[in-house]
């Protein structure tokens, strides 16, 4: 596969590889893809109370462009708002990495990973709010 230098760079020197505690309240985890399809991405975001992505980590099983797409995404979202992260789409990732047409699905997967991680975080927040509301209702 003829890849751009950017893909090679992200593949050979992947940024922000690692894991966070998936049970932590301020961590949203997105796990997308399928082993049978040859790629699985796990993206984790640590999000502050005011909606800023303070840290991002990934682990990816997949081809070179899948690894590069996830690495790029962690770089893009770190220090940015949740709203900005939600605005990232696969075309931006594919364009930035100059992915060949057969590898576009890797960028789609990376977009899905962001959305899944944020959805997980929001769900945790909602549960926590419910728990707080329930607790205060019970104490009344």
């Amino acid at each position, binding site marked *: *596969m003829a890849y751009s230098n950017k893909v*090679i760079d992200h*593949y050979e020197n*992947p940024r922000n*590889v690692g*894991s966070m505690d998936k049970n932590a309240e301020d961590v949203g985890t997105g*796990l*997308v*893809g*399928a*082993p*049978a*399809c*040859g*790629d*699985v*991405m*796990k993206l984790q975001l640590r999000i502050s109370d005011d909606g800023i992505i303070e840290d991002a980590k990934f*682990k*990816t*099983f*997949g*081809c*070179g462009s*899948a*690894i590069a797409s996830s690495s790029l995404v962690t770089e893009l979202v770190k220090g940015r708002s949740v709203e900005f992260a939600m605005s990232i789409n696969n075309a931006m990732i594919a364009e930035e990495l100059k992915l060949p047409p*057969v590898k576009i*699905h890797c960028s*789609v*997967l990376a977009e*899905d990973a962001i959305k899944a991680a944020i959805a997980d975080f929001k769900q945790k927040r909602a549960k926590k709010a419910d728990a707080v509301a329930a607790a205060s209702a019970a104490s009344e």
Partner: protein
Amino acid sequence: MSLKLPIYLDNHATTRVDPKVLEVMLPFLTEVFGNAGSRNHAFGWAAQEAVERAREQVASLIGADPKEIIFTSGATESDNLAILGVAHFYKEKGKHLITQLTEHKAVLDACHALEKEGFEITYLPVAADGRIRLEDLAVAIRPDTTLVSIMWANNEVGTIQDITAIGKLCRERGVFFHTDAVQGIGKLPFNVASMNVDMASISAHKMYGPKGIGVLYVRRGRPRIRLEPTMFGGGQERGIRSGTHAVHQIVGMGAACAVAADAMRDGEAERIRELRDYLWTKLQENLDELYLNGSWEHRLPGNLNISFAFCEGEAMMMAIKDLAVSSGSACTSASLEPSYVLRAMGVDVELAHTSIRFGIGRFTTREEIDYAVQNITDKVRWLREMSPLYEMVKEGIDIKSIEWTAH
């Protein structure tokens, strides 16, 4: 001796021309340039003599008569000629052929072409070790079957079929037997008589000869095999394969056969097998979760096909870029489907994505294998460190229990 990178470990794809072969070929690109079909002058005679000598060399390697050797442009053409040639010639007798799911595309696609013409093809399944069951073949042969085509050794997993038994069964049942013998010839002993073979495809470039030249062995004697040509013209090769003889390549193929016969006598297969076994042993010492694809017992000496679980094949090949290997991963194929050979053997699709094929050959050294072991070990660890699946397995999560979203 310093190690030269990258290291070639893809000897199923092609092999380097042996210097001894090249030396024999060169004069036929310069002073001996005649057309072997020119019967009336010295240039033609010299070329013809060279072609006939090469024919003898090929025949001698496989225990055939030189008259049974048809030169072609390569094994793809040989496979096509054997399959289409028999199917078309005997179409009044029957329009049924038998092959297997793990054949090379040259056989499968020739069969697909026949299906479009109204022929019926049976694709035999293979067991987990990559071999067909003789019982399956016995049941599949019908009164209207004209040809069985089963390869000798598989190009991906190196699995060797029991050609002798298959050939015997075909002979008993009165159907012709063709084998694509490309991967095995010149590496392991092959004898058309004792192995009951009617037709065999051979390629020079898989055995340290030049590309662009191959042979179809067609048995003579009774019952006679008749082929309808796929190439028409000057009537060369007894009218079965027209076209001016590529003398330099034919000479190269003959020389490659002679060199291979010597190498076999000198224990080349054993040396290569030792290197292959050493590679496999060392990798298993260093890494967990490795899965061998194909039979260990019935295997080409130079073949190792392993699934490195949790390391996708294309990423793996990018990581070990100093090693020239090949992968059954979808991401390395144009179709985005993982290897059909591994799938036919029942290998999990997840594991098929992580398969790497190593092909050790005549010019592979122990030093190169040592380098490969270290390189692969480091890179597999690095990729697994990055793999969410490996992490989950280490946490005790059953990956198969997760509901993945296919995409």
